[in-house]
């Protein structure tokens, strides 16, 4: 994929070229939105909004990392969604087990390649991490999602969030520490392979 050529075509109004870029980046964009918002449906809506907005404003892209530029768009879409949630708080409709309890591992999150035990294990870890992410201030969460989950470098994150590099370093360090503290509360819930064993994790 010749990204620069596709971007140029998209800037000239070629929607097919932009759709090729979407297919390449849609998983990253969706995952970022999912980890920031913590809700699959809202993340899908935010991703869609972000791509629409990105196409309409693609003329403002002046080069550099297209992924970082795209992440800025999805971050804005997520912030908009969070602001909407703040104005109109709603009760999440988690799947119900039938006896009034919420289901921890929704069926649609299941990965068919895993055994039920592995799936349960992965779900536990994911839920624990998502819970801790949700407890972070949104500006910390955005930085840690981009740097540690999306694997973006500091410069890209700085472009995406539009804050200085020093602020990125500071937010990332504090977010990691807070996550560590939060996840320690789930230590006994996490399976052995996911324990916060720093030596093996490194």
């Amino acid at each position, binding site marked *: 994929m010749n990204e620069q050529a596709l971007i140029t075509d998209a800037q000239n109004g070629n929607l097919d070229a932009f759709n090729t870029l979407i297919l390449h980046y849609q998983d990253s964009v969706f995952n970022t939105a*999912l980890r920031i918002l913590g809700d699959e449906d809202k993340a899908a809506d935010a991703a869609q909004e972000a791509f629409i907005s990105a196409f309409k404003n693609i003329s403002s892209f002046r080069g550099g990392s297209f992924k970082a530029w795209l992440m800025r768009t999805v971050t804005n879409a997520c912030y908009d969604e969070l602001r909407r949630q703040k104005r109109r708080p709603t009760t999440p409709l988690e799947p119900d087990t039938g006896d009034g309890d919420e289901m921890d591992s929704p069926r649609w999150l299941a990965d068919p390649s895993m055994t039920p035990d592995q799936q349960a294990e992965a779900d536990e870890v994911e839920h624990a991490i998502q819970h801790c992410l949700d407890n972070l201030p949104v500006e910390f969460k955005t930085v840690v999602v981009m740097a*540690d989950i999306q694997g973006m470098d500091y410069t890209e994150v700085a472009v995406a969030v539009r804050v200085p590099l020093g602020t990125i370093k500071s937010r990332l*360090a504090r977010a990691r520490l807070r996550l*560590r503290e939060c996840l320690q509360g789930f230590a006994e819930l996490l399976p052995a392979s996911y324990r*916060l064993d*720093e030596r093996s994790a*490194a």
Partner: protein
Amino acid sequence: MNQRDVELLSAYLDGQLSPSDSARLESRIRSEPELDSVLDDLRAARALLRKLPKRRAPRNFTLTRKMVGLAPPLPRAYPAFRFATTLATLLFFITFGVNTLAPQFTSLAPAFGMGGGGEPEVFSVQEAPAQDAAPAAEAATEAPLESASSLVPEVTALPPAEDSARVIDTPAAKSGEVGNAESEDQTQIASESPSPAPVVPSGWMIIFAAVALLGSILMAVMRRSSANRWK
């Protein structure tokens, strides 16, 4: 250990420190167990985040032209048609307005001027008998001469001679009927007066209307065919 140390450790973990800063921090880590412990915490948190499963997008987010508000590309001739249609519509309404309003202005103009023309005088004919209807007997002797002298100029202007004669001859005797008779006369006069010719020939209005209609139809066809081609 302060916040600055935590930031250094986090940046060190990501390889974001310069070689000299890295070397300095490594020596501190060896001598300060607390730094080593925090570094392990940061590393563990980062490792756990990296283990988060990457979810696939639940659907394709590709865009349609409708979603981004793109209109189908129209033929190059489309703007010319649009201009011609707009112009023809505008001209049609202007000519229509001119032809409708111009005669009214031309007929009203004298009434506000010298008081000339037929109509004001005719009103006097209408009103005179109505006012004199009650004292019919006195008017019977005086009216013929006066009214005859005052009405002569205008009555001669009226086409039917016998009607004017009747107006002159019988104002007192038929005072009750005079009003009606005069009204009928006026209606007749109005209907017989020639209607003014339109300022703009009506043929132009038809041409403008036809161009506007044809242009609108062609533009609609162009839009439809462009939309169909795009699907």
